[in-house]
């Protein structure tokens, strides 16, 4: 019996790294937006946080696009 440990290992590694990275980036984005919310409540602006948030969300959107590409490119 030939067990493809390499495939299992890479699925394991990729899933772990990609998930943690994606969730972390997205969490940062959300945190940025909620900082704006708090800043707005105090009459301040939080331009840096908001820019950072949009960069984070763009990265997530790119990941989703890549996911769709993977689904479609299976042919």
């Amino acid at each position, binding site marked *: 019996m030939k067990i493809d440990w390499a495939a299992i290992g890479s699925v394991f590694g990729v899933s772990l790294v990609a998930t943690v990275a994606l969730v972390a980036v997205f969490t940062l984005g959300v945190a940025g937006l909620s900082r704006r919310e708090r800043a707005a409540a105090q009459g301040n602006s939080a331009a840096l946080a908001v820019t950072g948030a949009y960069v984070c969300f763009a990265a997530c959107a790119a990941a989703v696009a890549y*996911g769709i590409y993977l689904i479609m490119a299976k042919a």
Partner: protein
Amino acid sequence: MENFSLILAIVVVTALAFDFTNGFHDTANAMATTISTGALKPKVAVAMSATLNLVGAFLSVEVANTISKGLVDETGIRPEVIFAALVGAILWNLLTWLVGLPSSSSHALMGGLIGATIASAGTGAVHGDALVTKVLLPAIAAPLVAGLAAMFATRFSYSISKNADGEATRKGYRAGQIASAGLVSLAHGTNDAQKTMGIITLALIAGGVIAPDSNPPTWVILSAGLAIALGTYIGGWRIIRTMGKGLTDLQPQQGFAAQTSAATAILASSHLGFSLSTTHVVSGSVMGAGLGRKGGAVRWSTATRMVVAWALTLPAAALVAALAESVTDLGDWGTAVVAVLLVAASVAIWRISRREVVDHSNVNDVEQPTGVVTAAIAAVTPPPAGTVTEELTATIPAPAPAPASDSAPAV
């Protein structure tokens, strides 16, 4: 499509019925966390998942082309064998739905194929190696991979932003959950709808209607996509409840981590050639997300029941399929008997389910109908074949159409 024999027609209808059960069995995989955290209204969630399943079905035919290769010898496989395999898979799907347990539809299908093949051609026709590497190992690896990823992601996410409240946070996680659930739905459509396409194509080849090595005909792609979308839209609310509320209590942040881990694991595995069952992945990631939050807890009793169902899936479907195959072997009337039995059993299961209705209105209610669950578990544990015959005698006069044959007009 000129000489379309009766048995082929039956196989096609049964395959579409399986596809339908596959759809409503697996709605939970994509949408359970989205529904339980309130990111989407139940009806909206299933509609979205159904649409994406349909879209996914058209994206590629690659999975359909590789289906069933390697696990059993395709040479000399007859339409009756495929029919028997589908009978086993459908019945197992319906039974697990009745008790609200998520189990892998692919395992049910593979179990059915294995059982029917053994009954038809002996144990030699099944590749034991393939069984271990394609079924057993992934079944163990899937929840571990997705669960660990979800656990670390949840932990990390909570350590970055501790108290997640406020409008922006709520909206953010809501959008994130919807996006990752959409990806899971899309991936599910490409994988699972195509399994049915593959089965139908296999049957058509076996019946000599289309040439070997053909791609699935357009009507097959269309009807399989529609069957799985319809099933998804009907929604396996019982399973959604177990997955979304029964295993653990999820906050939006955890729901997002769970769903993202599931989407990543599914895509990574199918891309790297080590296919994991969607059901196992999502169950694992939900539990992982539950463990990742401080104070979060997993209901191990529910988890244990689920794992038992996983372990039983393949042998149970195989056993039913083997029995069905040995009956269809008796001749055309045998096939008819099996078809009638299947319809009768489906009606019976549906009737039992009406005693304790779970639908979009009460899917998030936490109380578990333990009475029904334990009773049904008791019915599952002995070989399901016994229950099938009992149900037959009980319900054969029932004139109501079976839910399983809903997709019949699609032929």
